[in-house]
């Protein structure tokens, strides 16, 4: 087959993106993006609130979800060894990967061993994180995204902007144009008379992808959960593209972050109740697939599981931050975040945007390594809305504050940038990072200091508003509705819907 040059070889990448304030300023100027994001986040947020209210013991469920994840993480080695043993006993081959490169190598080698030059893919954060599509493309293997939004992103040579709805920055007429221009280069062309009706666009994607599903010999997936005790993997999805990938090909490789493990099959109950309601705001997502090794005569007869570290053990070693590994990638925190709503996912420069991205990226990559990552813990007003909705109770604001102090510490010493000098000043003022951390979290003094030192002004600059240096970022945010200059009662008035 011929590879379509565009979506595969020139795939856009987050590498080298400007640090958050710069990227955010650009994003804020894009009114289409802002409009789409506001619509999306508010719609999903409202749906979520309705279905969560139906569950009497929601708070208890959240507590159980958090405790289950914490208990599993505390004893992760045991659970991983059990998982490996059960997967192997059920007929799967288990691989381990220290980093992105090793994980991509495994997938490419499996494809190679079957002489394949294409694979179909289920949307997966882990494979996006390791840059699998680009790595496979470099080996001459086409990786076809099959989730509708990922297809739009891939054909448009674009970057995802939201965990759940990655193409939310595109409107229907743009999607129509992408399909008309790009589908032919990647397989079955879009019908020439394609309209911009979502149902017609989805039907075009169905036909385009069906051709690929029916001939695919190998699929790559992630997993939402991996059950240690039974060796069961779980994929939660909506469109059925996941089922296609998990069922039709002969070979399946699943790239699974080591934090995805849950101890027992019964534990799935808690997460299958928490995830769909938090994520798409549905009582249950359309399709969930579970598989335990190879089922003779049913589905792929060759299974590989890649257990991926890639910075997870670094996050695990952080006593405050390790709770971020509880994350079940529901994206509820994105949808309530006033900063995310106004800047969009691209400004975070990572496949993990929003509040969770602001902590997960520095935790997995380490602070003091690159400016982009170091700026993320500041991409927050610390309003706490993310913590309120998180189904596994990750205290994102506390982790953010802790990471800010780590950024300060990291910039003490080495050759400082202007920002680092400012941060160092803040650090010196408070003597110890722990005291700064406490001050920042509970009195807002830290943000006031940061404001004086130019950090908050970078922010308010991104909102085209005058700096208010004596005001804390949060107070400023509350007063101005995060820089939206709408009339009182308008959509941006204060954080009304977000305050606890």
């Amino acid at each position: 087959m011929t590879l379509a040059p565009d979506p595969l070889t020139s795939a856009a990448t987050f590498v080298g993106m400007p640090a958050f304030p710069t990227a955010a300023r650009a994003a804020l100027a894009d009114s289409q993006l802002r409009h789409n994001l506001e619509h999306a986040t508010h719609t999903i947020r409202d749906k979520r609130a309705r279905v969560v209210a139906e569950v009497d013991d929601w708070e208890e469920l959240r507590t159980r979800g958090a405790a289950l994840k914490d208990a599993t993480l505390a004893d992760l080695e045991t659970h991983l060894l059990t998982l490996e043993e059960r997967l192997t006993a059920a007929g799967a081959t288990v691989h381990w990967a220290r980093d992105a490169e090793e994980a991509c190598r495994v997938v490419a080698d499996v494809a190679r061993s079957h002489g394949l030059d294409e694979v179909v893919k289920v949307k997966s954060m882990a494979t996006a994180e390791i840059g699998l599509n680009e790595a496979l493309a470099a080996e001459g293997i086409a990786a076809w995204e099959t989730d509708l939004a990922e297809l739009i992103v891939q054909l448009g040579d674009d970057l995802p902007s939201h965990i759940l709805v990655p193409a939310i920055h595109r409107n229907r007429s743009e999607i129509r144009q992408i399909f008309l221009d790009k589908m032919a280069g990647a397989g079955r062309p879009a019908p020439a008379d394609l309209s911009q009706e979502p149902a017609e666009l989805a039907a075009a994607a169905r036909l385009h992808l069906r051709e690929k599903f029916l001939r695919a010999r190998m699929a790559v997936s992630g997993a939402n959960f991996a059950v240690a005790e039974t060796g069961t993997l779980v994929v939660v999805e909506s469109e059925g593209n996941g089922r296609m990938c998990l069922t039709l090909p002969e070979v399946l490789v699943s790239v699974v972050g080591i934090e995805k493990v849950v101890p027992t099959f019964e534990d799935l109950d808690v997460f299958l109740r928490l995830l769909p309601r938090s994520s798409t705001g549905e009582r249950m997502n359309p399709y969930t697939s579970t598989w335990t090794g190879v089922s003779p005569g049913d589905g792929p007869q060759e299974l590989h599981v890649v257990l991926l570290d890639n910075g997870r053990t670094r996050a695990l070693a952080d006593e405050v931050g390790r709770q971020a590994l509880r994350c079940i990638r529901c994206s509820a925190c994105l949808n309530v975040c006033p900063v995310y709503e106004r800047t969009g996912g691209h400004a975070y420069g990572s496949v993990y945007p929003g509040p969770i991205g602001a902590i997960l990226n520095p935790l997995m990559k380490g602070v003091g390594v690159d400016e982009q990552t170091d700026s993320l813990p500041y991409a927050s007003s610390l309003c706490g809305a993310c913590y309120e909705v998180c189904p596994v109770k990750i205290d994102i604001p506390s982790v953010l504050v802790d990471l800010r102090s780590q950024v300060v510490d990291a910039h003490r010493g080495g050759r400082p940038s202007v920002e680092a000098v400012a941060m160092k000043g803040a650090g010196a003022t408070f003597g110890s990072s722990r005291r700064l951390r406490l001050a920042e979290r509970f009195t807002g003094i830290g943000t006031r200091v940061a404001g004086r030192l130019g950090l908050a002004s970078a922010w308010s600059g991104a909102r085209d508003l005058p700096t208010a240096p004596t005001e804390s970022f949060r107070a400023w945010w509350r007063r101005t509705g995060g820089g939206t200059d709408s009339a009182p009662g308008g959509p941006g008035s204060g954080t009304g819907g977000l305050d606890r």
Partner: protein
Amino acid sequence: MSARDDVLARVRAATATAVAPPLERPVVQSRPGDVDLFVERVADYRAVVERCTPEELGARLAEVVGERRVVVPDGLLEVLDQGGLVLPGAVADDGLAATELDRLDGVVTAATVGIAETGTIVLDHGPGQGRRAVTLVPDLHVCVVRADQVVADVQDAVARLDPARPHTWISGPSATSDIELDRVEGVHGPRQLHVVVVG
């Protein structure tokens, strides 16, 4: 050091001081579910759902399927106790290729569990339920759920399932909201889900 040993060593070092919180795992006795609620919740997903008595089932299936060419998985008629049922377009699954399934109109199956609270059907692909591909590729899925298979909520379903088997949880027809959050039913899975609740 191998990647495996390296990752495990890092995990061990990272968790050296971590303390697991106490865990309570309530013992779940699978509770029966409210069948009316199940029907209502399935309908919420814009699936077609109807109820009938065991005596009516054969006639209902014959009418729903009509002349359409549908896969009838091994064991279906026995599981449904419909030994005499004749569907004119029935096709046995003798290892049909995906491209062959793609040319058929639908599939009729039994189910393993129904979940009232969420309107979910779970298949474990045992007798009468077919392998996973047959309920995926054709565009119509007619699924028969016995009233006594309906349980209250997710935990009651999980307690009834055999982890060794593959499972497909189905909540309405396939759907996407990827384009401006407009919900569109039917992307890759069956675009029509027709649920018949018996008893």
